[in-house]
């Protein structure tokens, strides 16, 4: 109520109070908000999704700032992105994309087939720093018959090609601005970059020249708050309107009981596993790995770590995807059986080992619980907390570890078990044969059957401890609509978000 005399305001208050109608009258004056503050735990190291593996880069930029040829929608489907349509040849080797007309980059330059060719060639070049170079490896050539058409020829069929081209790593960038994207990102999306306050926030504003449907929001800030207690406080104070991938699970009951907030629990692609070094003794013995599978009480783990907000898995595949096979019953919690298997493998008194834990709460908490569970059957696991850089260097790249706990968040990443140089040190020719057939086949029913077979092989080999799916929990202002519930890809797509 600007510039109204106090006495007049009081009179209105008095009348309003007398009628009991004042609270209901308020919304008619209030303007619908067009700004949004999204809270995230981690700050991105830079803002070029084609040059970094950090999920936070994509969580700021995907679909908001940059667009790939194809896109993943809220339900995980591949939908048109920069390309409005495409055709695939019968042999699965030639993809013909037709681009949206009139697309412009945020700096005003036109986006046409030449930019697509530049982006794909840049990603697959020998000196590429793309974090998912393997996505582009099947590409043999990229041709541009006209400005609106891109023809991509593959050297071998790739059933996931359209899926991979929808990832943030495949964002289309311009040759004029690509080099500076880390600090001053230029894309084609419905939002453009405004500023980055290091250590605090990245601000995006609506792109007035966007050729597609305009988002309801004018300004979106991504705020980075790593401390769990500060996350809770920021939500309560209204400093952030929504916090995605919220991981202070113990605070959820409180938010659920507060009508000002909505809590959504959705799926992610994060298979959380007890990664096991299959090449190292005693884990090279399948009986030892099976013993560990029997020793881990998954419902208790999910209760203790996620406060019940998670789904158990029995192999490396998310339950919400087609092709999932429920194998959670294969190794029921059974400490006696675990001890028997250990004895059979030559470890009647168990053994000592080290459990290296990266920083996320699910790993630190979960690791402590798993160590306690393993101790019950005689496996004395010493936990060793590590920072991200050290974990990536020693465990992930150096494969120097016994056990570790981590969520694998890339979508449809069961294929990593076919990579000989992956940090599990696992190799199974049957698995690789199925993988090869998967890459050749486009038929969905056949593909699902093959995925099922891969899941069974991994469960039988008990390659890793398959624990649970990391939930996608969003705590948000109850008046907010359109936030993604699930997280089929690393993204905070706010293009469809609005205030009620």
């Amino acid at each position, binding site marked *: 109520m600007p510039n109204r005399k106090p006495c007049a305001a009081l009179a209105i208050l008095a009348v309003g109070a007398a009628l009991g109608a004042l609270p209901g009258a308020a919304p008619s004056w209030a303007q619908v908000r067009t700004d949004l503050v999204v809270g995230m735990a981690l700050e991105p190291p830079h803002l070029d999704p084609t040059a970094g593996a950090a999920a936070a880069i994509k969580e700021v930029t995907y679909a908001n700032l940059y667009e790939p040829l194809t896109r993943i929608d809220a339900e995980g489907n591949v939908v048109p992105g920069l390309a409005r349509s495409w055709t695939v040849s019968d042999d699965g080797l030639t993809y013909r994309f037709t681009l949206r007309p009139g697309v412009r980059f945020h700096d005003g330059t036109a986006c046409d087939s030449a930019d697509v060719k530049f982006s794909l060639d840049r990603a697959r070049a020998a000196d590429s720093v793309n974090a998912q170079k393997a996505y582009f490896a099947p590409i043999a050539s990229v041709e541009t018959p006209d400005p609106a058409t891109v023809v991509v020829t593959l050297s071998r069929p790739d059933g996931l090609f359209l899926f991979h081209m929808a990832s943030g790593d495949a964002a289309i960038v311009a040759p004029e601005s690509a080099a500076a994207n880390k600090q001053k990102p230029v894309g084609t999306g419905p939002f453009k970059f405004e500023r980055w306050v290091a250590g605090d926030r990245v601000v995006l504003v609506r792109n007035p020249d966007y050729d597609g449907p305009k988002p309801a929001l004018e300004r979106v800030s991504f705020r980075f708050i790593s401390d769990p207690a500060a996350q809770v406080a920021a939500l309560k104070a209204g400093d952030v309107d929504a916090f995605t991938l919220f991981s202070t699970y113990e605070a959820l009951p409180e938010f659920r009981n507060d009508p000002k907030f909505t809590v959504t629990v959705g799926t992610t692609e994060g298979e959380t596993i007890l990664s096991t070094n299959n090449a190292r003794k005693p884990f090279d013995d399948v009986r030892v790995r099976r013993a560990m599978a029997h020793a881990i009480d998954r419902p*208790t783990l999910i209760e203790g770590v996620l406060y019940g907000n998670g789904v158990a898995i029995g192999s490396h595949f998310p339950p919400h995807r087609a092709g999932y096979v429920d194998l959670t019953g294969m190794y029921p919690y059974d400490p006696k059986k675990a001890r028997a298997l250990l004895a059979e493998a030559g470890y009647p008194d168990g053994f000592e080992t080290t459990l290296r834990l990266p920083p996320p709460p699910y790993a630190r*908490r979960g690791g402590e619980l798993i160590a306690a569970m393993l101790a019950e059957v005689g496996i004395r696991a*010493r936990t*060793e*907390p590590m920072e991200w850089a050290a974990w990536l260097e020693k465990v992930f790249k150096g494969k120097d570890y016994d056990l570790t706990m981590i969520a694998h968040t890339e979508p449809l990443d069961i294929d990593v078990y076919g990579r000989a140089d992956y940090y599990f040190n696992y190799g199974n020719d049957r698995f690789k044969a199925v993988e090869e057939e998967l890459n050749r086949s486009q038929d969905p029913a056949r593909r699902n059957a093959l995925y099922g077979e891969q899941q069974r092989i991994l469960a039988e080999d008990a390659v890793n401890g398959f624990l649970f799916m990391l939930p996608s929990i969003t705590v948000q202002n109850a008046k907010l609509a359109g936030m993604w519930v699930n997280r089929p890809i690393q993204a905070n797509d706010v293009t469809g978000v609005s205030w009620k």
Partner: protein
Amino acid sequence: MTVRRLPLSLRLGLVLVALLLGVALLSLVWTPFPADKVRVVARLRPPGAGHWLGTDHFGRDVLSMIMVGARNSLSIAAAAVGLGLLFGVPLGLAAAALGRWGDEILARLGDLVFAFPAVLSAILLTAVLGAGAVNVVLALGLFNAAVLARVTRGAALAVWRREFVRAALALGRGPLSVTRVHVLPNVAGVVVVQATVLFAVAIVNEAALSYLGLGIQPPSPSWGKMLGDAQTHLFNAPLQAVFPGAAIALSVLGLTLLGDGLRDWLDPRQRGESGLL
């Protein structure tokens, strides 16, 4: 020489430290529950008949964890101070005895250690060598050695200027012998007081490192880690932070009072110097 009453701070300190020691020793033979027994269904219970101080977020008994935590805290602090005494005191004595170049080199080495706060250098060391009790002891021990070397040197230099030391030298005693017979007994009081204070500092620093996840590793409980775990439960179970916090505060208070009281009691200016010699 008359026997004086012990200062109040010393008596209070002794009581608190004795309590701490008692709890730590008791935990060797008895705790209400095994301190590492996880029972998720019984988590975050308030204090009551079964669990006197309640249970933590994994359903472990808080009292048992505090008791074993006291033992862990004391052992690490004792080891860190012991390490400091072992290296710091001889270095300080040597610096005072050598004078000039030797003194200068040792003083600069000390500066190097003091350039970084103890917790920071401990974080650095545990980051390089890995988290765990042994590395915490090493990191804190290094800091303690530097502090004790500096304190010992200062006190020893003052003794070296005294007439009886000059007399001993004039009579043909070597520096080693003078250090052992005259210097060491005269700096012992200062060193003991300083060691007590460092003991309290070591308990706080160990808790800080464990809070950051760099100290004692689970399943062995640590007060600092308990505080760290309690942090995210401040909204729904604030007592989780109170008990380990109180344990740390009381221990440090006890040790500081003890150090304070010892200094008052041992201070030669209140004693009549001849009595000491």
